């Protein structure tokens, strides 16, 4: 049976269409979820896509966190539901306290849009088990507020527990502390990533097909194949 993977649309989401397409290319059935509807319709995993939910008013992700669908997702994530937050989705996961730290204005204040090399640091999560630790992947990055910050104790804890999922290599595009591009929760089912794997799933539009691994990982995770 094909896995059903939800993709949430908030007012101001931009990359929900691409995320749904990436889910389909990976071999799963994308299910569009609506921010105002708390029902998850039996999906087995959820993607929070990039964009500017609620116009980024107040702080990126601050208002989306209170969307009816998020209350259900936060509960379900506690029970092990795989959740991938991309860009604005990562910001929402931090605001919802599913992930520690925060994403702030890029240090150089410029919006950065480029193909970015990343090193996968942890292949133990629901969203990265198709990779090898240490593997380098090319994924587009496009953000204005992607500078990951957390206090030293949190950063040390993330590093110590192997919860830094990916780091920028070949230049840090936004000033993120310790070059962090992606992190996970202690259980490894919730991952936040600033670059956009859903934009690197087809030769026609992406710089590589490396992004597909995030979506095939969750399918592998759902059928219980050992990582």
């Amino acid at each position: 049976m094909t896995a059903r993977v939800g993709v949430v649309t908030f007012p101001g989401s931009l990359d929900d269409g691409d995320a749904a397409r990436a889910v389909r290319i990976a071999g799963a059935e994308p299910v569009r979820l609506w921010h105002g509807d708390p029902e998850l319709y039996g999906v087995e995993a959820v993607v929070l896509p990039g964009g500017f939910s609620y116009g980024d008013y107040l702080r990126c992700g601050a208002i989306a966190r209170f969307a009816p669908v998020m209350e259900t997702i936060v509960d379900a994530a506690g029970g092990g539901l795989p959740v991938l937050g991309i860009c604005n989705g990562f910001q929402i996961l931090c605001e919802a306290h599913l992930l520690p730290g925060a994403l702030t204005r890029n240090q150089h204040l410029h919006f950065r849009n480029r193909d970015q090399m990343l090193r996968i640091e942890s292949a133990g999560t629901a969203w990265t088990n198709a990779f090898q630790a240490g593997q380098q992947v090319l994924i587009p990055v496009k953000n204005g507020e992607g500078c990951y910050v957390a206090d030293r104790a949190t950063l040390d804890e993330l590093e110590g527990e192997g919860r830094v999922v990916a780091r920028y290599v070949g230049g840090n595009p936004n000033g993120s502390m310790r070059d962090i591009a992606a992190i996970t929760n202690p259980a490894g089912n919730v991952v936040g990533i600033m670059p956009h794997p859903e934009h690197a799933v087809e030769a026609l539009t992406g710089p590589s097909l490396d992004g597909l691994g995030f979506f095939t990982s969750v399918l592998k995770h759902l059928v219980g194949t050992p990582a």
Partner: protein
Amino acid sequence: MPRVVVDVMLKPEILDPQGQAVANALPRLGVSDVASVRIGRRIEIEFTGEPDLDRAREIADKLLANPVIEDFTVRVVEADETVDAHP
């Protein structure tokens, strides 16, 4: 109506690139005696009844500020009072 004013500032240890950009622009105005600039946000809340500082604190903690990176203060100002007005 009295209002509750919430001031939200980045914590001192969090880099404020916007403030730095403003500070770096000041020499172009001929200003050379400013050591640093930090930018925050001011929110004014009007309650339907009496201003409720505890409620405002809860709103600030849950929504207006992100306690991971920001500190906030709350205070009541009278309707005709302009806070820290320029003389």
